[in-house]
């Protein structure tokens, strides 16, 4: 195959990616869009195998077989609740691959043009940071590493120093550093990824995953500059744009800046704000029967799911409860806060898995004005996204974050294991309101108890 034909086929692959992404604009066309993008990828891979002179076929075949087996296995067996950590891991693999490609290019010859050296360094550093950062995020989401912020003494000075070392080593590599210097650079970038993600708390993971997604795209794009491939540059840029857009949406939904999340003062601020007198104030605690009656005789219910729903794997039980209520003529809808769960859109996927029709899922903007006209808000495993302090209390660390106005419904039912504050460590005045019923239970247990109780009601 000649090079011009190959270039055209790569262009077709890139167009398939763009059209594929465009079809993700509607749930109706989304699956076809993804398949189109996969077809584009297949074209790119086949063309590459045909135009490249493969001297060591077994290395290539072994990599493809092992990678396909591992990737296929993970994709088929993962629980929908574990999607954030899976995407984090895939991000890491992608970033790692880009760094490895750049590394192999660097080691190939020692007389590379300056522009190649620069792009190799960029691809390596971004790829390596993505790799190590993503696997730390994976560890946090999987519960292998503490979900709490973890730092090291002197981090305020250590991190800038590390960044300076990376810049220094990069310049050295570009101006003719040895492979040893190059490997030191890789090591420093890997360490940077670890120490930058460790201090970020579990609740900020949606931002981190989106940002690492953008990084994996940037790494791929830089690798495209290294090997002179437009297909890689285009695809990497698309993914970089996607990751940045999602990062921006997540950050806005928390009323924070990216710098604030990544270099977080949040944990500290929350501690200073202090949870106050948790447990001293009276709450209205309800039994499954109380809640069942409230729900069964309501005209309209808005369900507000949060990470607790995912942890308890209660989405199917929730759907069963919703079915019972709908049979009784109750209007049931779902309000999804942008940062509910551990990645953008996490709750939508869980509810889709439980067969909830997607036209019953509403964004914050779409449903916010309906709360005052709604009989019951059912909050399942969500906390900070329904905290009225974010709206009313200027001294609250989360003041200004958009919340779902569940306190404006006639009755707000909160299902929660205890009164303990959420990840942010902030007390929630919602729990102590007169129109709030607290139902203390694990989300799954609560749902199955409610199903039984509604059948009786």
């Amino acid at each position, binding site marked *: 195959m000649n090079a011009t034909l190959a270039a055209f086929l790569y262009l077709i692959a890139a167009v398939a990616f763009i059209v594929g992404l465009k079809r993700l604009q509607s749930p109706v066309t*989304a699956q076809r869009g993804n398949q189109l993008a996969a077809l584009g990828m297949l074209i790119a891979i086949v063309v590459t195998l045909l135009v490249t002179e493969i001297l060591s076929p077994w290395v290539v075949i072994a990599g493809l077989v092992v990678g396909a087996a591992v990737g296929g296995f993970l994709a088929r067996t993962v629980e929908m609740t574990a999607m954030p950590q899976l995407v984090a891991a895939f991000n890491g*693999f992608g970033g790692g*691959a880009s760094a490895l490609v750049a590394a192999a290019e660097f080691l190939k010859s020692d007389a590379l043009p300056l522009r190649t050296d620069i792009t190799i360094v960029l691809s390596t550093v971004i790829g390596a940071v993505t790799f190590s950062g993503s696997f730390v995020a994976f560890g946090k989401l999987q519960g292998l590493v503490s979900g709490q912020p973890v730092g090291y003494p002197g981090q305020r000075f250590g991190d800038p120093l590390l960044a300076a070392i990376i810049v220094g080593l990069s310049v050295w590599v570009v101006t003719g550093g040895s492979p040893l210097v190059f490997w030191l650079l890789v090591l420093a970038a890997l360490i940077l990824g670890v120490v930058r993600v460790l201090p970020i708390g579990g609740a900020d993971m949606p931002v981190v995953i989106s940002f690492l997604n953008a990084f994996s795209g940037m790494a791929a794009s830089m690798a495209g500059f290294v090997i002179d491939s437009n297909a890689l540059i285009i695809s990497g840029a698309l993914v970089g744009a996607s990751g940045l857009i999602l990062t921006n949406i997540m950050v806005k939904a928390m009323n924070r800046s990216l710098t604030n999340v990544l270099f977080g003062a949040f944990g500290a601020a929350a501690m200073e704000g202090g949870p106050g007198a948790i447990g001293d104030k009276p709450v209205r605690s309800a039994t499954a029967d109380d809640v069942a009656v409230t729900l069964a005789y309501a005209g309209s219910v808005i369900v507000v799911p949060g990470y607790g729903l995912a942890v308890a794997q209660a989405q199917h039980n929730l759907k069963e409860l919703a079915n019972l209520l709908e049979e009784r003529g109750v209007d049931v809808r779902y309000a999804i806060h942008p940062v509910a769960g551990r990645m953008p859109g996490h709750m939508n996927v869980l509810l889709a898995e439980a067969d909830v029709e997607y036209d019953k899922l509403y964004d914050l903007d779409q449903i916010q004005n309906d709360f005052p006209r709604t009989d019951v808000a059912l909050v399942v495993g969500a906390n900070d996204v329904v905290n009225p302090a974010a709206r009313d209390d200027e001294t609250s660390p989360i003041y200004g974050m958009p919340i779902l106005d569940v306190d404006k419904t006639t009755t707000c039912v909160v299902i929660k294991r205890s009164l303990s504050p959420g990840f942010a460590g902030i007390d929630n005045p919602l729990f102590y309101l007169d129109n709030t019923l607290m139902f203390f239970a694990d989300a799954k247990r609560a749902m199955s108890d409610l199903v039984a109780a509604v059948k009786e009601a």
Partner: protein
Amino acid sequence: MADLVIPITVFVLAAYVGFEVITKVPPQLHTPLMSGSNAISGVTIIGALVVAGRGDSTVAAVLGFLAVTFATINVVGGFLVTDRMLQMFHHKKDKP
């Protein structure tokens, strides 16, 4: 450096197209968007194949093998899991 102009042009235009297309993806599809775009970033596999096929030294072979493996996990896993998710959205009854 002059030969960087064209790749940078391609990059900037592609990023612009990306912003235009992806801004319109609804929040309910953000997880599949992320896993799907993530699979697309695995296109670095074409670089990995070139590197792995060159067979110039043991170190290069190891790097190449790892690069192909990582990129393939990213590509195969990413597209399959996105398909699995979208399947769930897919068979819902649409708005009347």
